[in-house]
């Protein structure tokens, strides 16, 4: 797992339970990441692609935050390889937005490609995790975010 960038890890949350948006086009991976996050006491919303994730984050041109602002997302964890919008492109869109740019974004990938990892970290990803995801990966991630 690549080291996190030095920028702040603080997750703003009025609630104790972090709300994570997990994005992955693979059904099995979505189920796995959801369970891993729930086991680390996170509330989880899943999306199967970038556009849907943006919709849920309220970043589409429609403007409506489908989660009604009640449950703000504290972390986005996304697969890199997705058809249509990649995780990298999703990361860029989040970092470009005024509302969501402070939200940490973690990228997951099954491929350990240094140029890919660096590209994501340079674009502002907090962390890059290699798939398949394990409990220890998620625990490390949520521990760091909780500080």
């Amino acid at each position: 797992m690549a080291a996190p960038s030095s920028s702040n890890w603080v997750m703003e949350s009025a609630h104790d339970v972090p709300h994570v948006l997990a994005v992955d086009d693979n059904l099995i991976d979505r189920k796995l990441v959801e369970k891993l996050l729930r086991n680390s006491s996170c509330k989880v919303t899943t999306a199967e692609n970038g556009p849907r994730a943006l919709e849920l984050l309220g970043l589409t041109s429609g403007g409506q935050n489908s989660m009604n602002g009640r449950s703000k997302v504290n972390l986005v964890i996304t697969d890199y390889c997705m058809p249509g919008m990649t995780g990298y492109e999703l990361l860029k869109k989040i970092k470009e937005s005024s509302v969501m740019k402070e939200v940490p974004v973690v990228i997951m990938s099954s491929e350990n490609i240094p140029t890919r990892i660096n590209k994501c970290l340079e674009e502002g990803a907090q962390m890059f995790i290699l798939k398949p995801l394990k409990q220890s990966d998620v625990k490390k991630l949520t521990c760091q975010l909780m500080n």
Partner: protein
Amino acid sequence: MEVDQMQRQYLDYTKPLFLEGFLDGQFLQLQQLQDENNPDFVAEVVSLFFEDSERLLNDLTFSLEQKSIDFKKIDAHVHQLKGSSSSIGAQRVKNCCIAFRNFCEEQNIDACLSCLQQVKQEYCHVKNKLETLIRLEQQIVAAGGSIPTMEFSF
């Protein structure tokens, strides 16, 4: 059969699956995620894997039968299958997919067809094993016992 006999039977069945490379440590990760709140987690994920894989294998068969082969599409399907098999710990299926992707890149039709056959075979094997494994687990739980954890490391 007594619970401890069932547990021994389960271990005798399961241990070779790891030693022979059908399953890897990722499967253990899945088992560790199963708890009282999610007593069927493994069975659910495995069931999703079966559905997803069968769909992908059908799509792959169809794509490789076409007059004009779309290697990009085939690679995308194999990538998906590689991802899911990796995430549940179906190591042999995953390894087949890795080889398959290399042949897609080379646009080698014959090798791809051969890989497809291999993936199907490995999938069938692991499906059988997993179905039996889950049945044995459910038997133990139904008898009031707990599923023994694998104690060896990889």
